[in-house]
C-alpha cells in the first residue's frame, strides 16, 4: 500500500462532502458536527470540469444513478472546513489517478488527523486520527474487501470479525466491522468500509 499525501487539514466542502456524494442538506454538514472556517472562509477554486460533473450527479443523476434531485450550489461546496475524514484525501488521490493517461491498479493508505465539532468526553475528542485504505482495480468484489480487512486486522491481533450492513453516502455496499472484545465481553465496532459508488 502506498501512502497518500494528507498534509492538508483545511479542506473545501467540495472534496470533503460533495465529491463523496454527500448531499448538501445532509445533517453532517451542519454547524454541530463540522468545523467551518471563518478565515479563509471559501476555497479559492474548485476543479472546473469535475465540479460540473459532481453538480450534475447530485442534481440529476448520472452513471446509472437517479441522483438526489435537488439544486446543487457551488457556494456551498466552496465552504472551507477542517476535514471530518481522511476520505477527502482519498477522493483527491482517486481524482489524480483518474487523470492519468493509463489506468494502473493502486493501493493507497493514510494515517492522519481529522476534526469533528464535538464536546470532549471519555470516548470523544474534537481531533483524532483515522487510518484509511483504498484499493482500486478491475474486478474487485465485496469478498475482496472483507478479505483485505481480515488480513489487516489479523496483523494487529484481532481475529474474531463480523461484518454488518451499514450506510455511507459514498459507498454502497457498506459494512461496519465488528470484533469481539474479550475484556468487555461484547462485539465492538472497529471499522467502517465499503465499495465506492460508481
Amino acid at each position, binding site marked *: 500500500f502506498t501512502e497518500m499525501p494528507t498534509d492538508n487539514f483545511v479542506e473545501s466542502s467540495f472534496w470533503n462532502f460533495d465529491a463523496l456524494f454527500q448531499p448538501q442538506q445532509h445533517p453532517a454538514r451542519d454547524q454541530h458536527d463540522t468545523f467551518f472556517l471563518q478565515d479563509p472562509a471559501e476555497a479559492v477554486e474548485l476543479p472546473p470540469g469535475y465540479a460540473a460533473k459532481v453538480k450534475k450527479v447530485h442534481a440529476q443523476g448520472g452513471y446509472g444513478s437517479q441522483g438526489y434531485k435537488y439544486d446543487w450550489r457551488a457556494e456551498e461546496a466552496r465552504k472551507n472546513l*477542517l476535514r471530518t475524514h481522511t476520505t477527502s484525501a482519498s477522493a483527491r488521490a482517486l481524482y489524480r489517478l483518474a487523470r492519468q493517461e493509463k489506468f494502473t491498479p493502486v493501493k493507497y493508505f493514510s494515517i492522519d488527523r481529522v476534526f469533528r465539532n464535538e464536546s470532549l468526553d471519555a470516548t470523544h475528542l474534537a481531533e483524532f486520527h483515522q487510518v484509511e485504505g483504498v484499493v482500486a482495480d478491475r474486478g474487485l*468484489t*465485496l469478498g475482496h474487501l472483507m478479505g483485505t480487512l481480515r488480513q489487516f486486522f489479523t496483523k494487529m491481533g484481532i481475529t474474531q470479525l463480523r461484518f454488518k450492513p451499514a450506510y455511507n453516502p459514498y459507498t454502497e455496499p457498506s459494512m461496519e466491522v465488528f470484533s469481539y472484545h474479550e475484556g468487555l465481553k461484547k462485539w465492538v465496532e472497529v471499522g467502517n468500509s465499503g465499495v465506492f459508488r460508481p
Partner: protein
Amino acid sequence: MPTVSVKRDLLFQALGRTYTDEEFDELCFEFGLELDEITSEKEIIIKEKGEGRAKGASDTVLYKIDVPANRYDLLCLEGLVRGLQVFKERINLPRYEKIIPAPGEGQKLIITEETVQVRPHAVAAVLRNITFTKERYDSFIDLQEKLHQNICRKRALVAIGTHDLDTMSGPFTFTAKAPSKIKFKPLNQTQEYTASQIMDLYRTDSHLRHYLHLIENKPLYPVIYDNNGVVLSMPPIINGDHTKINLNTRNVFVECTGTDITKAKIVLDIIVTMFSEYCEKPFSVEAVEVVYPNGKTHVYPELAYRKEKVKPELINKKIGISETPSSLAKLLTRMCLKSQVIGNGNNLEIEIPPTRADVIHACDIIEDAAIAYGYNNIQMTVPKTYTIANQLPLNKLTELLRLDLAAAGFTEALTFALCSQEDIADKLGMDISATKAVHIANPKTAEFQVARTTLLPGLLKTIAANRKMPLPLKLFEISDIVVKDPNTDVGARNYRHFCAVYYNKSPGFEIIHGLLDRVMQILEVPPNEENGYTIKAAEGSAFFPGRCAEVFAKGQSVGKLGVLHPDVITKFELTMPCSVLEINIEPFV
C-alpha cells in the same frame, strides 16, 4: 443514525413471535440495524431526572433501534415489522395502491401564487376508513416527528400536517397571507390568536421555538384553509385545533408543504404507505388532486414503482458470490425489492417500491442482495492487485527523525492542532493578524478557535500539565501546523514542523543548540553557509533579547531557536527558564 423507540412486546406481537434479546440483536445485525439500548420509560426518566421523578412511569420494555440514515421506511414500528417480516419471508411484500376517486368526489388542494416566495410546494393524500388505537396513534405522531428531524431537516425542507377529514370540507387552499390577517385556534389552545401572536406564544416553547425562524421574517406566512375558512395549519409551525386527529378519527387528510418537492413527495409516500395498513382496504391510499397557480394539476401521492434491470452476473461479480438468477431474485424480494428473472434467464427485473426511495443506483440493489445473502456468508478473498508499497517521503523523514530525537534524550509529545487565539499570538507577544492563522467559525469552546501556526504552545501547555515530573523536561513534537496560503486551492496549507523544548533551572541554550547540530548532522546538512546551515542572531517577540537566533538552510530561513522570554514563560503558567527550537523540516525531505 436515527433511533426508533419501540415497545418490545408490541414489536413481538406484530412479528408473530417472541425473541430473546440476543436473538433479536442477531436479527438486527443481519438486516443492518443496531439494537442500541434496551430500556424502559422509567429507566429513561431515572437517568435524566433522577429516581424521584420516575414514579408512575411505565415499566414496559423499550427497544431502541438504530436505523440507517437513508432508510425512511424503517422509522416506525409498522415499517420495521414489515421489513423484517418480508426479510424472514413470513409475509409477502404488500402492494401499495393509489385509488383515484370518481371525478367530483375526490379532494382538491389548490396552491395560490403567494406561496412561491415562502413555501412553494405542497402534496397531499387521504387515508380512508382508518382505525386508530392508542399505539397506532402514538406511532403515527412519532413517525411525523422522526421524518421532520431527518429528511425534512427540522421542518425546513418539508413540514407534515395531518387532519381529520370529517371536521373540514374541501376544496382546500394553500396560500400565504400577512401575519396579521391569519387568525385561528392553534392545536391544544383554548382561544384564537393571530399569526404574530402565535409567534410570540411559542417563543418559549421548548419544542416549537426552533421552527419560528423559518417563516418569522417573511412578509407573508403560509397557511392552509378549507372551503369554509377553517385553518388546517400554518406550516411549518403548528396545526389548527379544529382539525386535530383523535382516536376516533376515520378519515385522515395528510398534507406536506415545503421548499423541496422531491423530499415532499418521498415524505408523503412514506407516511401513507406505512399507515395505510390500518385502512379498511389495507395498503390503499386515496389520491388528492393538487392544482397549481398556473392551472396545471397533478395527482398525489405518486406511489411510483420504478423498474430497473440488472444482470445477475454483475451482482455475483460485485459481491464475490455465485448464485443462480432465480435465487438472486428471491434474495432481492426478501429485501422488499420484488424481482423476477426475465429474458432467457440472463437478466433480472427489479421493481423498486415507493418505500425504498434510497435505491437510486444498481449498486444499491447489489448491496441489498449481499445483505439478504448474509455478509458473513461471503467468502473472503484477497485481491490479486499487484502493487509496490511506498511511504510518503515527508512521513518517512518524520519517522526517522522521531527515533533519533528520542535517542537524543527527548520525549515525544502529541498535542492538539487546534488552540485559542491567545496561545499563538498574545502569549507569544505577537499580533494575531501577523500569524496568518486559519480561524474557525463555529468553535464549541475558546480552546478551539484557530489552527496552530506553531507547535510551541502545545508543548508549553504539556509542560505546564506535567510540572510535578522531575527536571529537566525535554519534549519534542514533529507535526503539522496550518497557515493561510493564497496559492493553494483551498487557501491554506500544512507545514511539517519540528519543535523541541528544554525546561530546567537554567535555560540550556547550549543544549537546544546542540540538538539542532545533531539534527542537521543526521540530515547530512553541513554547518556552512553555501550548501548547509547557519544561524544568525535575530530578534523574536517570544524570545529573550540577545538570546535568539534564526536558522538558515537550503537558501531560506527555516526557523528559530533561543531562550524564551520570561513573559511568555509566565503566560503559559510556567516558572523556570526554557529554551526552544522550532524549524520547518519540509525543505529537508
